[in-house]
């Protein structure tokens, strides 16, 4: 902070008050003397004091504060000189809601404030420095490591199927697929073209299985299982995509419609027969029921008639 040319001891009381307020210093009691204000001003605003008003010790502190760079904030003065109230306000500025500042807690809060004041503002925004604990990169690394661990276990069945597959499937073999996907450095020497050049499937398989970092290709494995379940007779291909013959559409192109369940036939003769049978069986039952119901109604009617009179 540049040293003022003016002597603060010559400031008016109002001016001192204004200065203190602009520097976020708590004002003392309302009717305080100018000396008190001046002292506060010198302490917090940090202008080199004139000889009379402060001890040497304080002067040193103020100079230390100034040495720490041209900070507009007068915070760098010794925290132990702050009143409890000021400490609280400063903590609040850093987003810390301080509890009661008493003897047993004061040193803690001072330390906390000190820590908050030290790092750059960007760090402050991220809280108290546990940003590394929750970083994304770490998780990704973990996942990768997991994949790496899984890879060797799964490579065995893969190699077996490769051995069985014909040489002309070489270009689409899982080994080549996974290594073209896997961007890891250890696999960088292993490529499709090389594989084709080598011609020998065995060699390719060996190199593929030796390659410790096979990350992506193996994730296809569970999908393959599912497909196998769905289409047990389908040909197994390394990418899980298989071209199957399209099934004929029943009823199209003059093919007879074959229903899974026999349809009820609607020929006129059968309909008539059904109607007759439907009518024949319940006919006498129908009449009996009708009689019963009608007699019941009649009885009810009669009883009501009797009661009503």
């Amino acid at each position: 902070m540049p040293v003022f040319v003016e002597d603060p001891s010559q400031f008016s009381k109002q001016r001192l008050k204004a200065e203190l307020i602009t520097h976020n210093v708590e004002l003392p009691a309302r009717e305080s003397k100018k000396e008190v204000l001046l002292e506060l001003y010198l302490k917090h605003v940090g202008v080199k004091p004139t000889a009379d008003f402060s001890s040497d010790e304080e002067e040193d502190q103020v100079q230390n504060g100034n040495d720490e760079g041209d900070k507009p904030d007068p915070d760098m003065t010794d925290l132990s000189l702050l009143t409890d109230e000021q400490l609280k306000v400063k903590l609040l500025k850093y987003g810390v809601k301080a509890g009661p500042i008493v003897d047993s807690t004061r040193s803690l809060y001072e330390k906390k404030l000190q820590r908050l004041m030290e790092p750059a503002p960007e760090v402050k925004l991220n809280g108290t420095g546990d940003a590394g604990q929750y970083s994304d990169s770490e998780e990704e690394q973990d996942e990768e490591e997991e994949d790496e661990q899984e890879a060797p276990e799964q490579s065995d069945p893969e190699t077996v199927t490769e051995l069985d597959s014909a040489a002309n499937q070489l270009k689409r073999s899982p080994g080549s697929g996974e290594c073209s996907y896997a961007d890891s450095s250890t696999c960088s020497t292993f490529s499709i073209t090389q594989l084709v050049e080598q011609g020998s499937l065995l060699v390719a398989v060996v190199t593929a299985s030796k390659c410790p970092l096979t990350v992506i290709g193996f994730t296809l494995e569970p999908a393959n299982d599912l497909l196998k379940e769905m289409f047990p007779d389908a040909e197994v291909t390394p990418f899980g995509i298989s071209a199957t013959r399209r099934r004929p559409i029943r009823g199209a192109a003059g093919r007879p419609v074959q229903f899974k369940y026999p349809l009820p036939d609607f020929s006129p003769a059968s309909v008539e027969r059904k109607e007759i049978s439907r009518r024949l069986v319940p006919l006498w039952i129908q009449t009996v029921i009708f009689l019963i119901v009608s007699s019941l109604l009649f009885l009810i009617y009669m009883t009501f008639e009797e009661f009503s009179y």
Partner: protein
Amino acid sequence: MSTTSRKHRDFVAEPMGDKPVTALSGIGEVLGEKLEEQGFDKAFVVLGQFLLLRKNDELFTEWLKDATGANARQAASCSQCLREWCDAFL
């Protein structure tokens, strides 16, 4: 901290009453003695400090470490213990 000690469970299970500081989980003989030297002779006095720090785990553990020389695990254990006690009985 996934598991809690028996001491922790015992403490959290009931009101602390007049228990000594050593009843707090994470506070053994040595730390308890140091706390008693500083006037924290009962668990409720330590609870008072915990509450004065607004139940802030970070500040409390730091205080405990400063005051008694507890290690991070002990301090965290004590703090967790007090926090759970507060959740249950406050």
